[in-house]
């Protein structure tokens, strides 16, 4: 009897501590149930993240009716039946830690003091959106599924595509405050061991308070901090992630975001899209080259325009020069200022278009691009050629399949415009050399960024610079540049 009272007191203390630790939140629920066997069962949960229906239907109601059985419960599987602690023999601190962890993870804590047991059931509510087509990586042909914010669902999406026992998902918790679930995924039989070790080492060395998106992780584990070029890529498409895993790469999945990080990545892989493999080989190759050309257009057209019109007019064909000269008659701003101004205005319109509600965003783009541009040209504030240059550049920028690489292009473009404005072609050439030297110096998880061009892996060219028909592809799925991976120091 005395023992029962002690346990009751201990439980009351625990409840009090829990309330105190969590700051008496409004969604914290304490319940006491009386079963048909007249046993008292205590229950704590956070009602905002618990699936109350499941809790009532599969746990509380059967407990009260005396029909609860852990074995027969279809709802309670290994994963959901998380913890079972002896109540009286556990220390107060240990109990508190476990209960808090369980509550924050969306579990329901049940204490049967008569049996001296405290149990945690996973009854997290389905707080994730439905699987939808990713908006940032839309394709014409191919699967429409996209990752969601729920990492378990995302694992399922990959498992669905790779039914292979070698597929590995390593779970870790990162973030002192957020304690976010991060999954390192790879194919054990394909991914180089050194790559997996390196990825694991980098993930484990992260010391941060919060991980709210995969970008948080990216900034911790990327190779080059001061570079406009991303050394990891990300995707919202399970098919793209699967293809990369099958190439021997590693994926980092973060709970709470649909963007899955993939490493290593090379410069030329940014011009590939998952859709390349769903189209005919010749068409895919053509489109890949269009993307490469678009990259050069997006980066170099404004700077070339500035250089040619202010320093090297002799490079243009006469008729072209006359047309440009005619357009510039009466325009008050220097070409460099004109280009910078228009590029910045374009970036503003683009950013505004992204943030606006979709319907307004489209209207804003039209007003910005057509009305503003036309009015500015008619008012002789800018030349028509500038509008064409900015528009072509903007469109070419959207061609690249990876959004983060598109942003890099935008940054580099401004640098080149400034260089061209101050030094003409000499500036562009200097910038280009710097850029190439920088690209050649970057590595992504030990893989040279410009591979397979330099260092040259000729056998990989048929899958990078062209997309050969499937029967001609390398028998070994791993790209050759992945095979020479060594552990980084």
């Amino acid at each position, binding site marked *: 009897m005395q023992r029962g009272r002690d346990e009751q007191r201990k439980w009351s203390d625990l409840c009090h501590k829990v309330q105190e630790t969590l700051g008496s939140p409004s969604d914290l629920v304490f319940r006491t149930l009386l079963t048909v066997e007249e046993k008292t069962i205590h229950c704590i949960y956070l009602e905002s993240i618990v699936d109350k229906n499941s809790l009532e239907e599969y746990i509380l109601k059967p407990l009260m009716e005396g029909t609860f059985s852990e074995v027969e419960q279809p709802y309670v599987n290994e994963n959901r039946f998380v913890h079972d602690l002896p109540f009286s023999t556990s220390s107060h601190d240990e109990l508190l830690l476990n209960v808090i962890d369980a509550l924050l993870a969306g579990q329901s804590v049940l204490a049967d003091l008569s049996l001296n047991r405290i149990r945690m059931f996973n009854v997290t509510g389905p707080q994730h959106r439905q699987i939808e087509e990713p908006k940032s990586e839309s394709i014409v042909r191919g699967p429409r599924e996209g990752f969601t914010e729920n990492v378990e669902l995302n694992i399922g999406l990959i498992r669905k595509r790779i039914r292979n026992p070698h597929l590995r998902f390593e779970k870790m918790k990162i973030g002192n405050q957020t304690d976010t679930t991060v999954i390192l995924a790879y194919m054990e039989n394909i991914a180089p061991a050194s790559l997996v070790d390196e990825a694991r080492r980098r993930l484990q060395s992260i010391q941060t308070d919060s991980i709210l998106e995969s970008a948080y992780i990216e900034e911790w584990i990327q190779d080059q901090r001061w570079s406009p070029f991303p050394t990891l890529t990300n995707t919202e498409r399970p098919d793209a992630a699967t293809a990369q895993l099958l190439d021997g790469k590693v994926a980092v999945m973060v709970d709470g975001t649909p963007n899955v990080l993939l490493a290593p990545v090379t410069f030329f892989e940014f011009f590939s899209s998952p859709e390349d493999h769903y189209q005919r080989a010749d068409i895919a190759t053509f489109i890949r080259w269009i993307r490469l050309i678009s990259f050069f257009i997006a980066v170099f057209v404004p700077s070339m325009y500035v250089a040619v019109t202010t320093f090297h007019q002799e490079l243009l064909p006469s008729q072209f020069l006359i*047309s440009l000269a005619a357009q510039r008659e009466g325009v008050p701003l220097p*070409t460099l200022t004109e280009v910078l101004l228009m590029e910045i205005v374009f970036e503003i319109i683009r950013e505004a278009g992204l943030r606006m509600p979709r319907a307004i965003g489209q209207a804003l783009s039209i007003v910005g691009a057509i009305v503003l541009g036309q009015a500015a040209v008619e008012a002789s504030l800018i030349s028509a050629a500038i509008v064409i240059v900015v528009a072509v550049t903007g469109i070419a920028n959207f061609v690249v399949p990876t959004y983060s690489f598109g942003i890099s292009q935008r940054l580099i473009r401004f640098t080149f415009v400034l260089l061209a404005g101050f030094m003409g072609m000499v500036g562009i050439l*200097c910038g280009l050399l710097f850029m190439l030297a920088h690209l050649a110096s970057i590595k992504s998880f030990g893989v040279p960024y410009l591979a397979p061009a330099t260092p040259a892996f000729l056998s990989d060219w048929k899958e990078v610079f062209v997309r050969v028909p499937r029967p001609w592809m390398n028998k070994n799925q791993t790209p050759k540049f992945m095979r020479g991976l060594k552990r980084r120091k």
Partner: protein
Amino acid sequence: MKERKRFAIGKALIATVLMSTVLTACWDKVEINDLALVSMFGVDIDPETGIKTLYYQIINPLAVASAKSTSGGEQAPVYTYKLTGKSFGEIRSLAYKVLPRKLFVAHYKAVVVSERTAQHGLREIINYIEVQSTARSSIPMLVADGSIDKIMKIFLPFDRLPSDSVASRLRLLTQESLLMSKHIRVKDFSEQLYDSKFIVMPMIRGKSGSAKQRSSEIASNIDAEENNLFISGAALFHGDRMIERLNDTDLIWYHLLTGVKGKQTLKFQLDGKKITLQIKQVNYNKTVKLNKNKPVLTINMDLQLSTGLATEPIPQNWEEVKDLERKMKQYLTSELNQFFEKTSKKGWDLLDIRGEVKRTFPHKAKMVLNNSQYLKEADVVINVGVKFLNIGSIIKPF
């Protein structure tokens, strides 16, 4: 280690920025609409006083680009600036007394020199063109037949820019006739100055209806004859001086003998029968031998005949074809020999026998060429191969 690396990068960046200041960068920056785009350039030098007159035809971009619309249509597409001075450099530096924009000569399409200047020598003009850093020497040079002032101040039908019209006509004549060769550029002229060879430059003549012209009036005038520039014959240069005019017939024989692979349609009279034939040179080679220290130049050329544009009866059978080939061979050989005789009598080494001997017999060249009569004593053998290949579409004209 990282600090040291950053320091090194910082040093490299500072060095780059400092070095970039010595580049002619921002300093030579010029906006496109601050340029006076020269489309044609004319030169006249008074042989007596040495006073030089430069004509710069400057493009008015607004009028050229907006030719299709009406906004710039009333403006002249080019403005001709006439500048006079004692030297080219002086004129250039004083040009801005009248010219509001920076002279930009990289895009001119033709150079016209007056006939009296050509006769006096073009060496100074060639040098002036070459010393201008942005000037191009791959553009045609023409000799004015008549007043250069008039030529430089004529608006033309079709092309808004007179230089475009001239350049286009020269190109078409090179493709479609034997009146023109590709070697009419300033650079061809300057190259031959080294060897003192002969070179032919086209001549141009202007015809304008009224003293004051409006480009829009000319564009709306049906009579293309009234205001136009005409390519008329050519000027033969030896060294930097013009020594003679050549008419169209002379030009054809000259170009055939010098290996220009063009085509020309001509009307021939063979044994009293008239026929229009197109001749096209397809093969040409020139060799020189020495016979008792006298040069013997052999020219072999293969010509194709065509009656594509013939309105007269054309050969109807194999015999007639062979007969025509034989007669044409005789006729052409005779004409070419006569042309050579005529020019050699005047002391013109148009076939460049001197150059051929120098190239083929470098050790004996001095001895052979020291003989002032080498040209008259030289034997020239012209072998013409004629083949009738294309017969016209109408077998029996109406």
